[in-house]
């Protein structure tokens, strides 16, 4: 492992002071004098055809400048999923359609002088609906004769991928390695469970926001809360039928995304209004709109069958998954693919069968959400591993250690499947999972607590412990790419132009640290400028936990290019060959003559004196493989067997994310993930009525954890170094969240002997499970 100067240090976030002082940094912090306000009319029906829509009264209302609906916008099949091109998600969306497919689907929109007028105009729109039968159960949706949600002739998959909308069936994946049936036959014990996770919303504190306007040349500038500025530009251009050059996307500071802003949810409508009215337009979701009409997590039904031998070897894994994507299919295939491709490589089991289907229903639109299918897969496998360990009487710690992949090993899954199709050959380049398990177990007090709770006295309040290991492959291998531009200023400082999209996680800081480290300069000499598609070069954006890893690699490459140019100028100035020179503390030193030049001198010479040129470089990198991040997680819970209430008392997460470029920020990602996960496991839940309407679209009724609910947490960053990553770093944005559901389920099982296979573990559901177990 290397010694670093700035990498590995918990420097303050470069934007921390600005944020703390409330500077106007977010999308909605600016305003324009002649700005219009847009509001959207949402469907009250889960499934209906719009026979006709009459917007004349709304249009006539003073202060209204435009009304959009299916009648007056181009019909462009597209996907809102912010993915590479062509997208592996079906083109099944339209800016507005003459059909609505869930309660909360777009019907029409108004832009007016004020939000109040726009709201009033919405109420004047007359919609004649032909209400259609709806289907909410994904298994029923696949049955012959079920209502067809996408019966329009123009929905399609652009890639040669499975797509059968006539049966509400929008993705199908089959993977088989080894001989799973033989594996099951050879097992001493075969265990089977059906495990189900539930819908949830990301609850980013900043709602989906967009302000668009025309620049003097008539191009559309879109300032929006996006995780994927370049994809946003491409999709906005697509929906508006404009060339990309007519659209400029600016990403200011973002108040959290977690995947929900990896989708184009407000931008197309906002930009369309600007195009129609030639005026600045603002479209910001209310909280109920964020809950219902942005994106959610895919609920999955996972039937898992595994075989285990008495010696503790897992001999077969069979997984049959039905994923509910709701009314549209953004990320429908890739989330399902990740449930296999990014989850199952953890297990040293040659015999694996995975069959997955994603299904349309008339419920909320699922999309990308931290965990992205791996969370679901880990929920199922985390429980199965615990059950198997229990069945053969082995301590889970030993069972996990025995059955998880090690450094240098490969998994047949890697090459069988990636997120989007055939996978890439790869091995595990770094893996400190055994150390994570050991250090986590020690810090947690695993052995002692298991012993203590085994012998706890009778009573309604029971305690227990559970653990799980996780893997999460970051980036989309072979597809994701990042580019970075840097240029040198007279004083030896640098502008770092990136389209890596800091959504709050801190990549502006982390990438500055990597750049400063690579050129041996202080952090304050890096002026980071994030994302403006007119200025900063292409980057995939913030998803798949890939920014530090992939954009970090591009930063290093760019720094290498810059270094070459600096040494060339210095060589001319010193009249020495570049081989004699090296960078040191913002200067160049000759190892021969001992002479030293400051970066400022070199920059000035390059700009003003001789053979003038701008010291600058742009470099790109694409993802060659999925770097594997590992965690081991331990939870201690208290279960009230009379009320069903579960409290997490202590949660330890030991993480192998390679080099933590900024340990505090890495811990922040881990702790944020764990809190996100516990809140999801215990309280967060959408409640629907029988017509598919969400009954609790507010923070008052949809509860997420706040400060007093957070249990004692401990995060251990286990030292490790990934040879493929920037200064040894691996991804950390999502991996920790994957393990929370099964860790808590396992701890509950340890406490009361009742297995919770359906999330969330609310008091009511836990009590019901206890009662079922007791046979009442």
């Amino acid at each position, binding site marked *: 492992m290397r010694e670093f100067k700035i990498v590995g240090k918990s420097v303050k976030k470069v934007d921390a002071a600005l944020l703390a002082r409330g500077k106007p940094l977010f999308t909605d912090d600016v305003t324009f004098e002649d700005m219009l306000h847009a509001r959207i009319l949402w469907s009250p029906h889960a499934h209906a055809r719009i026979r006709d829509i009459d917007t004349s009264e709304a249009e006539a209302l003073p202060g209204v400048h435009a009304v959009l609906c299916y009648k007056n916008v181009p019909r462009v099949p597209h996907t809102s999923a912010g993915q590479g091109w062509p997208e592996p998600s079906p083109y099944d969306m339209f800016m507005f359609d003459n059909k609505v497919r869930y309660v909360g689907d777009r019907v029409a929109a108004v832009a007016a002088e004020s939000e109040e007028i726009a709201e009033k105009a919405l109420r004047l729109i007359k919609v004649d609906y032909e209400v259609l039968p709806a289907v909410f159960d994904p298994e029923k949706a696949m049955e012959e004769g079920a209502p067809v949600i996408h019966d329009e002739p123009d929905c399609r998959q652009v890639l040669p991928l499975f797509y059968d909308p006539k049966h509400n069936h929008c993705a199908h994946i089959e993977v088989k390695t080894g001989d799973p049936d033989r594996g099951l036959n050879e097992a001493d014990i075969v265990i089977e469970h059906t495990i189900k996770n539930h819908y949830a919303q990301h609850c980013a504190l900043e709602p989906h926001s967009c302000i668009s306007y025309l620049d003097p040349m008539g191009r559309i500038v879109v300032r929006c809360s996006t995780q994927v500025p370049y994809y946003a530009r491409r999709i906005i251009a697509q929906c508006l039928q404009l060339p990309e050059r007519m659209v400029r996307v600016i990403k200011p500071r973002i108040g959290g995304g977690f995947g929900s802003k990896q989708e184009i949810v407000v931008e197309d409508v906002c930009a369309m209004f600007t195009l129609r009215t030639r005026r600045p337009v603002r479209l910001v979701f209310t909280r109920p709109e964020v809950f219902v009409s942005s994106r959610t997590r895919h609920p999955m039904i996972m039937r898992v069958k595994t075989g285990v031998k008495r010696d503790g070897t897992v001999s077969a894994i069979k997984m049959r998954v039905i994923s509910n994507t709701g009314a549209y299919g953004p990320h429908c295939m890739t989330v399902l693919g990740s449930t296999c491709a990014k989850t199952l490589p953890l297990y040293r089991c040659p015999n694996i069968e995975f069959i997955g289907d994603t299904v349309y229903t008339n419920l909320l639109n699922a999309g990308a959400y931290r965990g992205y299918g791996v969370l679901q897969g880990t929920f199922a496998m985390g429980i199965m591993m615990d059950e198997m360990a229990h069945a053969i009487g082995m301590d889970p710690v030993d069972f996990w250690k025995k059955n998880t992949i090690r450094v240098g090993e490969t998994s047949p899954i890697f090459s069988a499947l990636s997120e989007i199709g055939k996978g890439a050959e790869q091995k595990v380049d770094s893996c400190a999972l055994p150390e994570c398990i050991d250090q986590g177990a020690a810090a947690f007090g695993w052995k002692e607590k298991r012993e203590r709770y085994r012998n706890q006295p009778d009573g309604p*309040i029971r305690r227990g412990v559970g653990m799980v290991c996780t893997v999460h492959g970051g980036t989309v291998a072979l597809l994701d790419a990042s580019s970075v531009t840097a240029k040198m200023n007279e004083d030896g400082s640098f502008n770092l132009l990136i389209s890596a999209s800091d959504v709050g996680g801190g990549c502006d800081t982390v990438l500055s640290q990597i750049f400063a480290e690579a050129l041996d300069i202080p952090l304050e000499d890096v002026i980071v400028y994030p994302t403006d598609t007119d200025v900063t070069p292409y980057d995939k954006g913030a998803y798949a936990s890939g920014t530090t890893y992939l954009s970090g690699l591009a930063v290093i490459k760019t720094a290498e290019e810059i270094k070459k140019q600096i040494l060339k100028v210095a060589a001319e100035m010193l009249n020495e060959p570049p081989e004699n020179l090296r960078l040191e503390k913002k200067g160049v030193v000759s190892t021969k003559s001992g002479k030293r030049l400051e970066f400022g001198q070199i920059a000035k010479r390059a700009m003003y004196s001789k053979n003038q040129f701008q010291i600058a470089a742009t470099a790109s990198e694409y993802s060659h493989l999925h770097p594997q991040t590992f965690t081991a997680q331990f939870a201690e819970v208290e279960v009230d067997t009379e*009320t069903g209430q579960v409290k997490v008392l202590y949660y330890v997460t030991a993480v192998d994310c390679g080099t933590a470029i900024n340990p505090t920020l890495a811990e922040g990602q881990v702790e944020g993930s764990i809190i996100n996960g516990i809140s999801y496991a215990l309280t967060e839940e959408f409640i629907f009525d029988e017509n598919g309407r969400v009954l609790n679209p507010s923070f*008052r009724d949809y509860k997420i954890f706040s400060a*007093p*609910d957070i249990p004692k947490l401990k995060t251990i960053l286990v030292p490790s170094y990934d040879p493929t990553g920037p200064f040894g770093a691996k991804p950390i944005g999502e991996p920790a969240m994957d393990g929370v559901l099964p860790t808590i389920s396992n701890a509950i099982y340890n406490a009361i002997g009742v297995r919770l296979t359906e999330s969330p573990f609310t008091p009511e559901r836990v009590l019901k499970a206890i009662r079922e177990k007791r046979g009442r």
Partner: protein
Amino acid sequence: MALLSRYGDKAKLIAGGTDLLVDMKNEKINPQYLISLMKITGLSYIAEEGDVLRIGATTTLRELEESQIIEKRYGLISKAVKCLGTVQIRNMATIGGNICNAVPSADLPPALVALNATLKIVGPNGERTMPLEDFFAGVKKTKLSVGELLKEIIVERPPARSGTAFIKLSRTAEDLAIVNVAVRITLNEDDTCREARIVIGGGVGPTLIRSREAEKLLLGKKMEEELVKRAAEVACTGFSCRPTSIRASPEYKAEVGRVLVKRALLEALKKAGGVVEDDERN
């Protein structure tokens, strides 16, 4: 008062606004005028006079929480206040607002009813008093007439050999109750029950429920665990929960209601110095 009578039902009183403004934002109500109580001097106080405690209606929950008198001698209020919302909410919210908002899930009313609270109400025709127990007329409905406001809450100090308990079950720390329970019991010399007050809130009906029948069961008897369990059963039979509650199903509320009442009674008994036989943990 003049403002209230001038604007009648076009106006709403606002204290801390933590209920009212939420309702206005959700467009449940749309008053033309807001009359703030917070600038009226002499409406915010905590005063102990012998065996009664007088609390001004605009006293904030934070002030109740920090009051030594309440902490020491009216622990039930203290306990209920601490379970209510977050510090930020408690800094703004008032006791009068928690009562007059009249939602069945509020946390203070059960505790106050258990302490036999009475309300002092002022209006155009002068003052009147009313037991808090009789004050609620339904969800968001009180027995205040147009032009009246709540001025003061008067609470009795529990006599010797009394014990109280407040238990709230909620999804998260700042959520409203799934069920909350407040009890106060007083024992005779011989450890039999002299008085019991059992009050259940948390949307188990349109208003909180005081279970006189369950209380009667206990009167004059030794509070053995079996009896306490039976009282809890009885107390939780008369629930009429909204079937569509977001927080929990009616069946669940009834089931945990029984558990919480039982636990609250046993806790109160212990505090009153009675012996709990066959004590369970917690």
